[in-house]
């Protein structure tokens, strides 16, 4: 393996993209949700549920496709509860999201225990493998990072592009934006606010579930309690950092991924200082990046606000 600067950069970028993938997927879903006006802190729960059900489906069917389906369903299960609570019951969206995180952690651990008992042998499901795209993967530095990865990552790029088109190039995107900025106006224009928000919640579940499945179906091939370990919270950060724009979310996720990849590499040099100095590197970087993007943020005006037609 090449160990020169080019080699290091290549490996770093490839690692960044890998780590960015689950964050990007979940971030895309949350982007839909937040643009439509629902703030879902329960992203962690969505991802965890997605990871669990994708594993269960893939384990019993030995089929990756069914695994993906399971992941989506798992994510949707949590996101639709949140959607129902926010859209129909108009409850506080933050507290509902937090509660669902606890619920999802409990449910997945419980079901896993039920299915496999207390065991040290690791039940495994099939995983997707890396596929090099001819020619493209030979491009120096970015080739291996973007074109010699597993199909999941290609799917993610595809979805980023698709989400960009849907959100910024179609009427659907306009409807979603209207619902999040001025639900009353959207309603008056004949757009169903609750329908739009439910659909956004559905997408959030699908994407977040896919993000969780990435862990089981691509990265690891097994499930463990709390396998997401806070990635959902980081994905929330990525959404804001990426300014709720699909490409921005991808970039932000790669940035966070790169910071993480870098800290692992710095640690291996074996300085005799506490590892925490390195472990907090990605978080510090995020704060610094935010500092340099001052004033460019715009939050959907109705984010987190329930829409009640009879109120004014």
């Amino acid at each position: 393996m090449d160990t020169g600067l080019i080699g290091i950069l290549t490996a770093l970028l490839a690692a960044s993209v890998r780590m960015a993938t689950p964050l990007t997927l979940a971030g895309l879903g949350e982007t839909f949700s937040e643009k439509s006006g629902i703030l879902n802190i329960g992203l962690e729960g969505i991802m965890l549920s997605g990871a669990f059900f994708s594993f269960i489906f893939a384990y019993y069917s030995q089929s990756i496709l069914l695994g993906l389906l399971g992941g989506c369903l798992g994510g949707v299960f949590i996101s639709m509860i949140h959607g129902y609570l926010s859209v129909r019951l108009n409850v506080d969206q933050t507290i509902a999201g937090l509660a669902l995180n606890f619920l999802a952690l409990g449910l997945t651990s419980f079901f896993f225990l039920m299915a496999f008992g207390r065991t040290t042998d690791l039940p495994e499901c099939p995983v997707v493998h890396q596929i090099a795209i001819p020619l493209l993967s030979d491009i120096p530095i970015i080739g291996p990072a973007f074109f010699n990865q597993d199909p999941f990552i290609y799917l993610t790029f595809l979805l980023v592009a698709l989400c960009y088109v849907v959100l910024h190039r179609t009427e659907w995107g306009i409807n979603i934006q209207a619902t999040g900025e001025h639900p009353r106006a959207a309603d008056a224009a004949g757009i169903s606010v609750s329908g739009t928000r439910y659909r956004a919640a559905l997408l959030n579940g699908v994407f977040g579930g896919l993000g969780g499945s990435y862990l089981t179906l691509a990265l690891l091939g097994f499930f463990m309690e709390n396998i997401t370990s806070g990635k959902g919270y980081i994905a929330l950060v990525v959404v804001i950092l990426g300014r709720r724009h699909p490409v921005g979310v991808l970039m932000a996720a790669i940035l966070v991924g790169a910071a993480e990849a870098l800290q692992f590499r710095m640690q291996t040099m074996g300085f005799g200082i506490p590892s925490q100095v390195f472990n907090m590197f990605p978080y510090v970087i995020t704060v610094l990046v935010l500092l340099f993007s001052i004033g460019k943020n715009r939050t959907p005006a109705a984010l987190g606000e329930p829409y009640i037609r009879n109120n004014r």
Partner: protein
Amino acid sequence: PSSSLARNIKVALLLSGPANDGGWNAVALKGLKDAEKKFGIETAYTEHVSVADSESAFIDYAAQGYDLIIGHGFQFGEPAVRVGKRFSRVKFVAIESNFSSKNTASFRMSIEQAGYLMGIIVASMSETGVIGIVGGMEVPSIVKYIEAYKIGAKSQRSDIKILESYVGTFTDVAKGKEAAMAMIDQNADVLSHIANQAGTGVIKAAQAKGLMATGDSWDQNVIAPKTIICSALYHVPTLVLNVVKLVKEGNFKGGIYNQGMEDGVVALSPFHSFESKVPASVKKKVASLTKKISNGSFTVPLIEKRTSN
């Protein structure tokens, strides 16, 4: 002591994480269940006991009439001593701690012994001359393994390059895998871990890249038979059995105890499919060192704070 054998004692176990972690906590629970079978004792356990909850967990079990309460992790040491003052009848044990009192004992496993030997094996197996080890949280019970591992590896091959990192978590499997990938990118061809669940990610990384890895806690060969050279075993079950036996026989005394290869608590697993691949000279060296460590003629250095390479 035969009279106390008749008494049916109650033993409780506190775990800091999920009992279902396939590692550190799972083996401890297995020990408890073994003890239950062997001695016919009554047992109970609690998982996910946080630092904030450990004292109340000790108190609750003590008040419920348990005779022996084991906290599986260094952080249980101090609360055990504190609660021990109030329940002088009850025996407390913390594993990997260094707190003790009249009725509180700390049992420390000399896993550095396994780390040292593992370093030798790994260094001998590496073709690239680069090896890597991933730790979970940076705590003494992990650090001492890694530091001994580094010394062992250097003793086998002085030009060996050792990559080490701590992922700061025992649960984040994806992080463990990425830490390993970072090492693979830097040419490491044998990877070790002492990171519990997160370590499984390390094994997965090696497996995916067709490289070698070592296991930890229990014989992890089953996870990746073609990848795992050998595992460092901590017979926590044995430890638990030892402790329960002491209590049952009324021989329990507070204090700090080290248990290692000599007590059958620390060991290396068989090589399984690597039996033929590990050079005979290395196998011989490891075997003789094991003997020396067990009979006390060789002491592996105990370093509990991270040093620079």
